């Protein structure tokens, strides 16, 4: 039982990270019908901006809450700017062409970012400085939860609530929903669609960057290719929940995280090697696409952003 609870906590932790990234995929898809494959790399950019901020501002010396907040918010802002720049210079000029063109551009942007980072910084992993004094708490008998896990839960829930508020309670959120229904009609209604699209990219990128910094507290190893697999799994999470659907992205992220952890934790008992962990996410994707192409929560009448 302890082990089960522990595995659940482990799964929810990585699931929360997947969920944060999946939100960016799903929002951009909701508005542009574009799978932004560069999104996983924004997560990596966020982690690296956090890394350099921590060293440049002297927070790497020791754990501090101020340092953590500054690094977290700083990297979210930087990633938002990067996301907006990508949209402005890579996607906007070709928005009027076939959707395939943008998709391939997205893959190109992803490769560009990865290789720029490898060229500038090298592929060797770096150790992210410790910004949080690590400590474990025991709950439910023997199950342990660490400070960095609590941080991941707290920050991701807070960000998701904030996102929900932005989308449903603010003017810009209303505009986002309008654009996601129909871009052209929204434009005719006087909505500045270019701004809204830009804003959506900024929002999604900031969430991904938060995911990057939070993961780096939990697992202090960062490298320029860290966004590939994590990004792909977050994409699977978004599809699993129903792409374009915000609660679906969160649900999908948590499910993928838990499934993965359980494969590792219990798979060996039934002869499934732990190396199957990555395969599971994609097996789930195939199954979902076969039996429920719109995803778990996705349907055409769902409210989308």
């Amino acid at each position, binding site marked *: 039982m*302890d*082990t089960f609870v*522990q*595995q659940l906590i*482990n*799964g929810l*932790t*990585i699931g929360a990270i997947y969920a944060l990234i999946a939100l960016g995929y799903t929002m951009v898809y909701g508005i542009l019908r574009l799978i932004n494959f560069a999104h996983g790399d924004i997560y990596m950019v966020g982690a690296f901006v956090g890394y350099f901020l921590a060293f440049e501002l002297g927070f790497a010396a020791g754990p501090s809450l101020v340092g953590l907040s500054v690094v977290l918010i700083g990297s979210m802002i930087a990633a938002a700017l990067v996301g907006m720049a990508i949209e402005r210079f890579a996607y906007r000029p070709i928005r009027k062409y076939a959707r395939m063109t943008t998709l391939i551009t997205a893959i190109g942007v992803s490769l560009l970012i990865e290789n720029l980072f490898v060229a500038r910084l*090298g*592929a*060797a*992993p*770096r*150790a992210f400085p*410790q910004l949080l004094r*690590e400590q*474990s708490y*025991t709950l439910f008998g*023997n199950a*342990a939860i*660490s400070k*960095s*896990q609590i941080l991941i839960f707290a920050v991701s829930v807070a960000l998701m609530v904030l996102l929900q508020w932005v989308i449903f309670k603010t003017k810009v959120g209303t505009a986002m929903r309008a654009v996601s229904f129909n871009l052209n009609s929204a434009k005719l209604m006087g909505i500045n669609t270019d701004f809204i699209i830009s804003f959506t990219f900024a929002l999604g990128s900031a969430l991904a960057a938060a995911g990057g910094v939070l*993961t780096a507290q*939990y*697992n*202090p*190893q960062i*490298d320029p290719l*860290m966004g590939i697999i*994590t990004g792909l799994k977050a994409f699977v999470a978004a599809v699993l929940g129903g792409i374009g659907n915000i609660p679906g992205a969160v649900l999908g992220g948590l499910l993928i995280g838990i499934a*993965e*952890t*359980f*494969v*590792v*934790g*219990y798979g*060996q008992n039934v002869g499934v*090697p*732990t*190396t199957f*962990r990555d395969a599971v996410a994609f097996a789930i994707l195939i199954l979902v696409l076969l039996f429920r192409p719109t995803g778990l929560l996705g349907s055409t009448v769902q409210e989308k952003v």
Partner: protein
Amino acid sequence: MKRILLSLGLIASLLFVFACERKGGPGAGGNSGPIVIGYYGDLSGRTSNFGQSTKNGVEMAADEINKAGGINGRQITILSEDDEGRPEKAATVVTKLIDQDRVVALLGEVASGNTLAAAPKAQAAKVPMISPSSTNPAVTQVGNYISRVCFIDPFQGAVMAKFAANTLKAKKAAIMLDFNSPYSRGLTEFFESSFTKLGGQIVNKQSYTQGDRDYKGQLTAIRSTNPDVIYVPGYYGEVGVIAKQAKQLDIKAPMLGGDGWDSTQLWDLGGDALNGDYISNHYSVDDPSPAIKKFVADYKARYGNVPDALAALGYDAMRVLADSINRAGTTEGPKLKDAIAATKDFAGVTGTISLDKDRNAVKPAVVLKLQDKKYVYVETIYPEGMTAPAAPAAPATSGTSPAAAPVLSPAKAGAAAPAKAASPAVTTKKPAASPQ
């Protein structure tokens, strides 16, 4: 048609240029001019600390030899190639070093998987290769041109098993191995067989792959079986994170590892979570012998940090190679490889190096304790047939005297049969004041 002819002509002239370069390349196997030696290692990938340290050691040794007049009056030139820590790239760069640069001998790699990919190229081209620190037995089984200056995994795995069973009094061990690494799988196999023969029990075995980011699933499964020790024969990049996540899960059992942990980055990743863990290694920087003291001081002066075992092995590999060229009196592959294989009682910083009939070095291993970013010397474990040199401190103060130490039976001989002389029978020497 004209254009085709033109391009054919271009290709032909390019080929001609290459052909010329091959013939008159820098190494060329002659008996004058600089001796060109190829080094390949991971200088930019996931294990780049390994490649960089080894390269530092190799270059430092080459510079010292050159300053002292070179080998028979000839200077050494080291050509370095980066294999990014990938086996296929290792094979490519070694082919380049052999075919294009015409090196007379090769030094590398650290990770056994990469050495195994490159070794067949050297063997086929009859270019002797010395691996400074690949410990998997299969490496030198590739052929008679491949040798190494470090001990091998049957011994290293047995050392840790013996340390766990006898010194730490562990009964239950769990293993966390890197599934795709020959190094990790080899160590696991030999640790497991030795530990069970000493009366211990392997209660759980979990695996991960290089580049994984979350190990809590495996660690939670291990925790539920309540082991006394956890053996993690991996490389520093993953191990640092594993140690950290184990601490987050409140796992108190110490982790044991091998020489793959030894790197400065280990501490950046694992931090305090590594305190109280143990590794087996090739040498200890705290060793008071004058040769090691001088090496550590020179290295520090040159590179600004303490040399890890990989730097020391790189240094030794280069010096063994220079010594062999000197003895052979030539850089011709067949004669040079015989001279390398005949290396006996060479005084290296990582111990006295003698190659056995399988071209593996027979050397003692040290066990180090990880404490506050330092590797603290705990004990030296000798292979069977090798006795501790007259130590300055009497070893009699510890509980287990060397004579009473149980002799392990040889590890299970699988595809990778352990070399006879290095079979995992071990004797222990402990320092008078064992810092435990």
